[in-house]
C-alpha cells in the first residue's frame, strides 16, 4: 500500500472527527471499497481510506486496487475525483478554487450547485444565512479543530545567576556559549533558551 501515490490535488477533505470515524470503520470492516488508481499508481479514489490505513501503520499490506485499461488524462482524473465524492463528505474549497473549470462543468459532474457557488465565492451571504451558518460550525464539524490534548501546557523558567561564577557554571553545565548578535549594531546579548528535551539529554549525560 505504501507504494501508492496520494493525489496531491485531492479536493476531498474530512474533519478530525470524520477521520476518527473512518479509522474506526476500517478497523471494524477493513477495506471494503476498493481504491482506484491511474496507471502511474496515483490514487484517484480512496485517498482518505489509504491515508487512514497508512496512519495505522498498515503500509506494508497488499490491497486490491481498480486499475484503468488506459491512462486517464488529468481532466478525467479531476472529473472522477468529483463524481466519486459527490455523494458524501465535504470538498476542499481552496483546492477546488484553483481548478480551472467553470460552474457548469462542475455541476455536470454532479456537484451541488449551491456548494459550487460557494466555492467560486460568487454569492452574497444574507444576514439570515450568516447567522445560520455561523451557528452551524463548531469543533465537531470544522476543518481544523484546535483542542488541547492531555496535559498540554506551555511554560518556562528563568534561571537567575547572581555572579559570574554561577553564570559560568550554568554555561558549562548546559553547554551554552556566549553569543553576541552578529550584526553588532548595539551591545545586546542574545538569550539562551533550553528545551526540556535538551535538558533531559544533558541530564542523562551528567548521570
Amino acid at each position, binding site marked *: 500500500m505504501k507504494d501508492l501515490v496520494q493525489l496531491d490535488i485531492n479536493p476531498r477533505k474530512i474533519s478530525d472527527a470524520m477521520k476518527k470515524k473512518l479509522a474506526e470503520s476500517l478497523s471494524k470492516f477493513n477495506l471494503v471499497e476498493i481504491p482506484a488508481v491511474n496507471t502511474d499508481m496515483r490514487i484517484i479514489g480512496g485517498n482518505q481510506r489509504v491515508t487512514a490505513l497508512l496512519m495505522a501503520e498498515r503500509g506494508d499490506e497488499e490491497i486490491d486496487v481498480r486499475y484503468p485499461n488506459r491512462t486517464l488524462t488529468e481532466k478525467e482524473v479531476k472529473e472522477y475525483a468529483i463524481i466519486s465524492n459527490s455523494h458524501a463528505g465535504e470538498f476542499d474549497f481552496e483546492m477546488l478554487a484553483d481548478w480551472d473549470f467553470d460552474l457548469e462543468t462542475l455541476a455536470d459532474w454532479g456537484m451541488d450547485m449551491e456548494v459550487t457557488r460557494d466555492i467560486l465565492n460568487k454569492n452574497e451571504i444574507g444576514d439570515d444565512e450568516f447567522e445560520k451558518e455561523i451557528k452551524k460550525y463548531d469543533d465537531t464539524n470544522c*476543518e481544523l*479543530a*484546535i483542542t488541547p490534548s492531555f496535559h498540554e501546557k506551555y511554560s*518556562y523558567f528563568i534561571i537567575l545567576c547572581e555572579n559570574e561564577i554561577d553564570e559560568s557554571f550554568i554555561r558549562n553545565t548546559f553547554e551554552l556559549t556566549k553569543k553576541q*548578535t552578529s550584526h553588532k*549594531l548595539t551591545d545586546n546579548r542574545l538569550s539562551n533558551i533550553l*528545551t526540556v528535551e535538551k535538558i533531559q539529554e544533558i541530564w542523562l549525560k551528567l548521570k
Partner: protein
Amino acid sequence: MAEIKIVVPTHKRSEILTTNVFNQILCINQSEKEDYSKFDCEKIFHKENKLSDIRQFIFKKLGSVFQIDDDIVSVERLFVNLDVVLDSKEIYELIQETYYNSKQVNAKLFGFNSSLNPKHYKPQKPFVANGYINACAFGLIEDDNLYFSPKTTACESHWINLLNAYYNRYSFQDTRFAFRQKSNSTFTLDGGQSLKRTVTSEKKDTLFLKMMFGDSIQLKKGRKDSKLHHKYQRKLNIKL
C-alpha cells in the same frame, strides 16, 4: 547567526509610509514601482492583488521572514517610562534576537505584544507561548504547514495564529515590546487593506474562519468603551 529578512508589504502608500526599520525591504506591486522609487532601500516586486496573496508570495520567496505593516509609527518598550521608543537599528536587533529565541524553542510563529497598553503587560511573564500575535508585525519560520489562504481577504492575523495553533501548538511572543500603528489605521487609513476590506468581505472572512476552525472563532461583542466597526467582527478563542 543567520539573520531573518524584514519585509514591509505596502500598497498605494508611497506618500504616507511610516515604517522605518534598518535593512527593511519594501514589497510593492509591479505597477507602483515608480511611486516608490524615492525610497532608497531594497525592493521586491509582485503582481498579486490581495494582501493574503502578497504575504504568501513573500513567505514563498524568502522562506523565514518578518513582515511589518507600512503604517508603523513606533516600536515601544512597555517596561520603562524613559527611552520608550526604539530606533531603527534597535528594532532590527530586537527582531533578530526574537527570531533567534524562537528558533531555540522551535516556534514557527513569533511576534510581540499586541497591546500598547502597559496595563496589559505582565512583567512577571515577559515571554508568552500561546498569545495572540498581531500580523502588523510578525515573523514566520519556514514550515510546511503554514501558508496564507487565498480564500481570505483581510484576516491574516487570525488565520496565521489559528493555523499555527492547530499545527504547531505554540508561538513565541516577547511581550515587553509592541508595535504602534497609526491611530485607527487598521480599518480606515487610505491605501493598503482599506482598499480591499468591505463589510461583505469581513462577513465572508468570519464565516470562512468559523468553517475552518470552529469554536476557536467567535463573534465579538461590543463594549461601552470599545464599539464594534461592524457586526461580523470576530475574536479568537484558542483553548491552548
